[in-house]
């Protein structure tokens, strides 16, 4: 169970890719403070559960998955807060930066967003993305197409959307 070796590998990967993890979280929670919380919580979970990592799992893929789940978790918690805070509007507003085009991702579901961000912004292979989502390859492809359709993105020639 307790595996110092794996823990060390996870730690290295966290320190190498925390910026990617932060950006990924940001596309979900849309503000600095929450994105930082997500990355911190994810780092905590990753180290804590490093023993559960199976041989052959890609650590980075696994970290992406944790960040996505943690972001979604936080969003749901916030949604719940909003409903219970309707009567007492004295909370401070978080600062949301105005990223028009990133807001375009709002039309996507949690999974679709992950596919778009990982495929196009983090340049991950479809198979890796499938691993992140724990879906098979063809499901992942169809999520990708569906997401592109939703975004109504016009891909320029040569920007073709999946690796064979």
């Amino acid at each position, binding site marked *: 169970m*307790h595996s110092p070796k794996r*823990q060390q590998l996870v*730690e290295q990967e*966290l*320190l190498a890719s*925390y*910026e990617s993890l*932060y*950006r990924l979280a*940001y*596309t979900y929670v849309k503000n*600095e403070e929450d994105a*930082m*919380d997500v*990355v*911190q*919580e994810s*780092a*905590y*979970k*990753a*180290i*804590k*559960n490093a023993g559960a990592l199976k041989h052959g799992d890609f650590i980075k893929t696994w970290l992406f998955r944790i960040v996505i*789940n943690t972001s*979604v*978790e*936080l969003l*749901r*918690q*916030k*949604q*719940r*807060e*909003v*409903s*219970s*805070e309707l009567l*007492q509007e*004295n*909370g401070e507003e978080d600062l949301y930066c105005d*990223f*028009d*085009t*990133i807001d*375009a*991702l709002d039309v996507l*579901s949690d999974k679709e967003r992950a596919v778009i*961000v990982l495929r*196009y*912004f983090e340049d991950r292979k479809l198979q890796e993305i499938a691993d992140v989502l724990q879906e098979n390859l063809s499901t992942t492809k169809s999520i990708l197409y569906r997401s592109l359709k939703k*975004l*109504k*993105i*016009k*891909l320029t020639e040569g*920007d073709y959307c999946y690796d064979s």
Partner: protein
Amino acid sequence: MTHNIKQIKMDYQNIKVPESLKQKVESSIEQAKSDVEKDTVTNRSEGKKSCIFRVWTARLCIGVAAAVLALAILVNMNASVACAMEKIPMLGAIVRVINFRAYLSQDGKMEAKVRIPNVQVENQEGEVMESPTKNLNDNIQAYTDEIIAAYEEDVRAAGGEGVQAVDLDYEVVTDNEKLFSLQFHQTVTMADSSQSERIYHIDKASGEMITLKDLFQEGADYKTSISKNIKEQMKAQMERDDSKIYWLDSEIEEDNFETIADDVDFYISDSGKLTIVFDEYEVAPGYMGVVSFEIPTDAVADMVKEGYLTV
């Protein structure tokens, strides 16, 4: 409006990563390491800690102690799973999958994995609505008991020689202001595999379970309208695509699809359309798998109750 992916990517890369993040990540790592050590020393089992953002987010808790508390009590199981499954709507009754039990069995080459969710219906004040909660859970249990009993019967009958895998999983397919729907996917694999679906719906306004007829006005002949539309879709699909076959005008007349049943499975799609789901083999040959038909709201617009479907 169209968006250029390069433009979005640029904005993505321009997301500024705060300088303090690195140090925070390091402190999380240290915290986790020391917790892991503590756990090892006291030999505590994993998964006891709640997945609430407890370490870093005191600010989240202010003013919402009650809500956070409710979340924290959630868990007698893997915490991250429970939280990931949570669904939190804004209005009306709140329905949550609070945890699940698993029935796992392995007997030679026969195995079963059945996940049985435990669901809770709450009103706006957060009080548990006993009767709807019990009703829904009883229904789920009756359904899962049936599956488990059939499997155990097969194990007995096979006397150690059988090959079979039963898998039952569930997902929340709809959770909006009006409706909470929980879908079960069952796969039974023997020489061949068969899939079937079962979907339960809770009306948020009342907290009660509803079926297809509850979406429609009293006495409306929704079954005929929906069936007619499905037949049209089947026909159109078969004309367009040779590889698709539905039992519509086949020689074996009793197999032909005539009308949907009272207890037909359905859900409301993301875009607010009624979608009818048929099990494998129900209206088509096995290779078609589980098939579903989205019914245009126009087709039933004059009889549907307000608020469930969108045009």
